[in-house]
């Protein structure tokens, strides 16, 4: 892999990780409060929070690594930009898929456990 391709890949990976940590920073505190309230088990909260973070990181890596940079140094700059955009698109799709799956999971968890705790 040439230096140009490597730079493109590193930028894509960095952007994917920034996306992941932005989502994590936005959601983690309120998600922790919600899980504490629903589960009433500290280990349960830790398990679901960690699995969420691991899932987000894996989604970012899967998206970034799925994109192959195979350009010549003479290729125009915008080719690299479009490739980074395509990789970021894939990472966004995977993060969105994970968020949807997780949202459904947590909604069921909260609804079922709240009903059980109220009984």
């Amino acid at each position, binding site marked *: *892999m040439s230096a140009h391709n490597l730079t493109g890949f590193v930028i894509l990976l960095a952007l994917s990780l920034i996306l992941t940590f932005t989502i994590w920073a936005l959601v983690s505190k309120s998600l922790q409060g919600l899980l504490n309230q629903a*589960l009433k*088990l*500290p*280990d*349960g909260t*830790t*398990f*679901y929070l*960690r*699995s969420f973070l*691991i*899932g987000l990181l*894996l*989604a970012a*890596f*899967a*998206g970034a*690594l*799925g*994109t*192959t940079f*195979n350009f010549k140094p003479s290729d125009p700059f915008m080719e690299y930009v479009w490739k980074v955009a395509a990789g970021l698109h894939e990472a966004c799709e*995977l993060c969105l898929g*994970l968020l949807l*799956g*997780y949202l459904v*999971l947590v909604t*069921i*968890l909260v609804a*079922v*456990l709240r009903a*059980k705790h109220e009984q």
Partner: protein
Amino acid sequence: MSNEQYLIVSYFFVGGLSIVIGMAAYACLRRPLAGLVRAFPNRNLASVIRKLFPAGLLLPALAGFLSVSYRSCDESYEAIIADRAYLVGKNQAQLSAICLFLMLAVLSWGIVVLLSLVSQLRRPGRAGDGEPNR
């Protein structure tokens, strides 16, 4: 390093890396899961979940690695090793598949734990502490 040497080294390196990534995910989630299943009245279920958990993360990581094939459209071995960029691309595809399969496995384990939690809360008084449900 020739392309053939690169193929051999990178194949086994990425295969080993898939196990390392699976183990890392397991190491992160092992303790909270153990604490969680300790609260289950049914000890057998807790034991089954605890013992299946490492396999449930390692096997998807390995399956992701193995899901990528070097051969496409009946390419010969010589054609495969002729292009270094193709080999690097395949390594990236393997790593991407490992991450994707592992992400799905982690999400699936979340569902398994959810179902276990719900089933254990349903009949809290019926299963004796330390006794299996019959």
